[in-house]
C-alpha cells in the first residue's frame, strides 16, 4: 500500500487556473507550494556551496601539517559556520523544499494548508543566514565555539554572539512554522480515499520528522535564550560561578541535537523509499513496517541524547541506559535496510542516476550507521570522543546519507518540475565522481580518529599527514563534482520532453499530473484508488 493513482487527469481541474504574477513579486509574495519549494531548493543549493567553500578552507589548511593559509581563530570560525550552514541552511531547507513540492502532489492537495505561513517560513531563512554570515565581518570574528555552542566557551564570542543567537532563533522559528504546515497539511488535506497507511513513505517520514521538529526546535531556542540571558542579563543558567551548570547546556542541546540527526535522515529514508521501488519495478517491501520502524526511530531519538556526552562523567546506570538505548536504534534501522534490499530482490532493476544515488545511500549510510554503533559503546567512546572517527561517522551519515538522498530526489523529480529529462550521462558522471571523492574524503578520517587525531584543530602531528592529504584531495574533488550538478540544473530544460509518468515504474498521485506540474494542481480532490495493483 505504498501509493495511490487517480483515474482522471489532474490537469482537467485546472480550467480556472490563473498563472503566477510577473516579476519579483511572484517570489517575494508567493503562496504557491511549488514556487516556495523551488525557492527552498535554490536557497539550500546556495548554502551548500557557501558551507562547502568553508569546508574547502578547512581541508586546504589540513592538507599538510603546519599553519598554511588561515589563523587558528578563523579556522575555528570555519568549522563552526560550516556546520551551522550545512545543517540549518543546506540539508534541512533542501528537505523542506522537497516536502513543499511533493507532499501536496503526493496526497492530492491543492497546496499547503497554510500558504501565507509557508511564505514566511521561507523568507525568514535568508534573513537568518544573512545575519549569521554578516558575523564574518564583525569585530572578534564569526562564532568559533563549535556549532554545539557549549558554554562557557561560546560566551567568549565577540560582537557576533547576539547575532548568532538571533539567527538560531530565526532558523528555529522557520523550521517550526514549516513543520506545523507539513503536519496540518497531511492531517487535513489528503485526498478522500487516502488513509494514513496508504500515504507514500516520503509523506510518512516527513510527518514523523515534523513532529520531531516541533518537539525539539523550541528546546534549542530555549537553550540559546538562556545563553543570551547568561551573557547579557546577569542570569547563571550555565555559569558555574553563579551556581549554574554548564553540563546542563549539553543535556539540553543534545536533547535537541540527537532528534535533529533524525530530522536530517528520516526524509532521506522517505526519498529512497520512493525511488528504489520505481527502479526495481516492485512495490516497496513492508510499507507498514517501514512506517513503524520510522516511528520507532523517532521515539528512540528522544532517549539517547547523552551518548554525545559520555565523557562528562555521568553515573554508571546513565551510561548503560544511554548505551543500550542507542544500540536499540540499530533494530528499526536494520528493518529499513532489510526492506530496501528485499524491495530490490528479484526486481527488474535499472540504474538511472536517482537509483544510483539511492543505492549508494543504502550502502554508505550503513557504514555511517555501523560506526555510530561503535561510538555507542561507552567504554570505546571514551577513546573515540572528539576524534576524527566522530567526524568520519557523522559525515558518512550526512553526506552520502542525507545529501545523496537529496541528490537522488532532485534527479528523480526534476523531470516532473521542469517537464524535461535531464542529461543522464552527465548525471551519472556526477554520481560516480561524487561517490569516489566522498569516500576518499571521509573514509581515511576513520583511521585518523582511531590513531588519535583530535577534531577541530588547524594543525596536527606529522604522523597524520598521509590520510589528511588524501582527505583534502577527496574534498576538493567532491566540491568540484558538485559543479556538475549545477551544469545539470542549468541544462535541465534542454533535454527531451518528459512524459507525465516520467519513469516506467513510478506510481503515485504526483505522476498523474502533467510534466511540468501545472502551477495549480488538484484544485478538486482526485478520486484515488490503491495504486500498487499495477505491481500485482
Amino acid at each position, binding site marked *: 500500500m505504498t501509493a495511490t493513482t487517480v483515474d482522471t487527469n489532474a490537469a482537467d481541474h485546472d480550467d480556472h487556473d490563473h498563472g503566477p504574477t510577473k516579476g519579483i513579486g511572484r517570489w517575494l509574495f508567493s503562496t504557491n507550494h511549488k514556487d516556495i519549494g523551488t525557492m527552498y531548493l535554490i536557497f539550500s543549493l546556495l548554502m551548500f556551496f557557501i558551507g562547502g567553500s568553508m569546508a574547502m578552507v578547512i581541508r586546504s589548511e589540513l592538507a599538510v601539517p603546519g599553519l598554511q593559509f588561515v589563523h587558528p581563530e578563523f579556522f575555528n570560525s570555519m568549522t563552526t559556520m560550516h556546520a551551522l550552514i550545512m545543517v540549518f541552511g543546506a540539508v534541512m531547507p533542501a528537505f523542506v523544499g522537497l516536502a513543499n513540492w511533493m507532499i501536496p502532489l503526493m496526497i492530492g492537495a491543492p497546496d499547503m494548508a497554510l500558504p501565507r505561513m509557508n511564505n514566511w517560513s521561507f523568507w525568514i531563512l535568508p534573513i537568518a543566514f544573512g545575519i549569521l554570515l554578516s558575523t564574518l565581518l564583525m569585530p572578534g570574528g564569526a562564532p568559533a565555539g563549535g556549532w554545539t555552542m557549549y558554554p562557557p566557551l561560546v560566551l567568549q564570542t565577540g560582537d557576533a554572539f547576539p547575532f548568532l543567537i538571533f539567527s538560531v532563533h530565526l532558523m528555529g522559528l522557520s523550521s517550526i512554522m514549516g513543520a506545523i504546515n507539513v503536519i496540518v497539511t497531511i492531517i487535513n*488535506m489528503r485526498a478522500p480515499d487516502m488513509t494514513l497507511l496508504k500515504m507514500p513513505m516520503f509523506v510518512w517520514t516527513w510527518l514523523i520528522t515534523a513532529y520531531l521538529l516541533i518537539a525539539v526546535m523550541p528546546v534549542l531556542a*530555549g537553550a540559546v535564550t538562556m545563553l543570551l540571558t547568561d551573557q547579557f542579563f546577569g542570569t547563571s*543558567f*550555565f555559569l558555574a560561578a553563579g551556581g549554574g551548570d554548564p553540563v*546542563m547546556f549539553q543535556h539540553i542541546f543534545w536533547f535537541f541535537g540527537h532528534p535533529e540527526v533524525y530530522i536530517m535522515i528520516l526524509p532521506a529514508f522517505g526519498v529512497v523509499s520512493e525511488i528504489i521501488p520505481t527502479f526495481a519495478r516492485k512495490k516497496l517491501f513492508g510499507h507498514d513496517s517501514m512506517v513503524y520502524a520510522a516511528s520507532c526511530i523517532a521515539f528512540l531519538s528522544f532517549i539517547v541524547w547523552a551518548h554525545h556526552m559520555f565523557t562528562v562523567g555521568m553515573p554508571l546506570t546513565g551510561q548503560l541506559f544511554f548505551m543500550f538505548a542507542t544500540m536499540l536504534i540499530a533494530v528499526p534501522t536494520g528493518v529499513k535496510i532489510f526492506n530496501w534490499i528485499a524491495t530490490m530482490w528479484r526486481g527488474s532493476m535499472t540504474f538511472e542516476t536517482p537509483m544510483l544515488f539511492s543505492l549508494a545511500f543504502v550502502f554508505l549510510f550503513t557504514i555511517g550507521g555501523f560506526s555510530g554503533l561503535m561510538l555507542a559503546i561507552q567504554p570505546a567512546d571514551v577513546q573515540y570522543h572528539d576524534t576524527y572517527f566522530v567526524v568520519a561517522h557523522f559525515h558518512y551519515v550526512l553526506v552520502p546519507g542525507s545529501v545523496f538522498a537529496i541528490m537522488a530526489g532532485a534527479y528523480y523529480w526534476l523531470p516532473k518540475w521542469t517537464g524535461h529529462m535531464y542529461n543522464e550521462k552527465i548525471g551519472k558522471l556526477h554520481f560516480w565522481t561524487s561517490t569516489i571523492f566522498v569516500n576518499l574524503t571521509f573514509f581515511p578520517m576513520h583511521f585518523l580518529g582511531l590513531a588519535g587525531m583530535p577534531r577541530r584543530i588547524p594543525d596536527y602531528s606529522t604522523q597524520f599527514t598521509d590520510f589528511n592529504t588524501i582527505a583534502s584531495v577527496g574534498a576538493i574533488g567532491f566540491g568540484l563534482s558538485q559543479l556538475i550538478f549545477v551544469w545539470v540544473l542549468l541544462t535541465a530544460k534542454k533535454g527531451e520532453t518528459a512524459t507525465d509518468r516520467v519513469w516506467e515504474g513510478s506510481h503515485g498521485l504526483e505522476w498523474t499530473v502533467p510534466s511540468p506540474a501545472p502551477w495549480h494542481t488538484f484544485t478538486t480532490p482526485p478520486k484515488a484508488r490503491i495504486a500498487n495493483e499495477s505491481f500485482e
Partner: protein
Amino acid sequence: MDELERKQRIRRTTLIFVAVALAFYIGFIMMGVVRS
C-alpha cells in the same frame, strides 16, 4: 468534509501544535530556572 469544516480543522490543528511548541520552549527554560 466541507470547506468551512476543513478550515476549522486546519485552524484547530495549527493552534494545537503552536501550543505544543510554546510548551516545549517555556518548559525547558523553566527547567533551567529550577535547576540553576
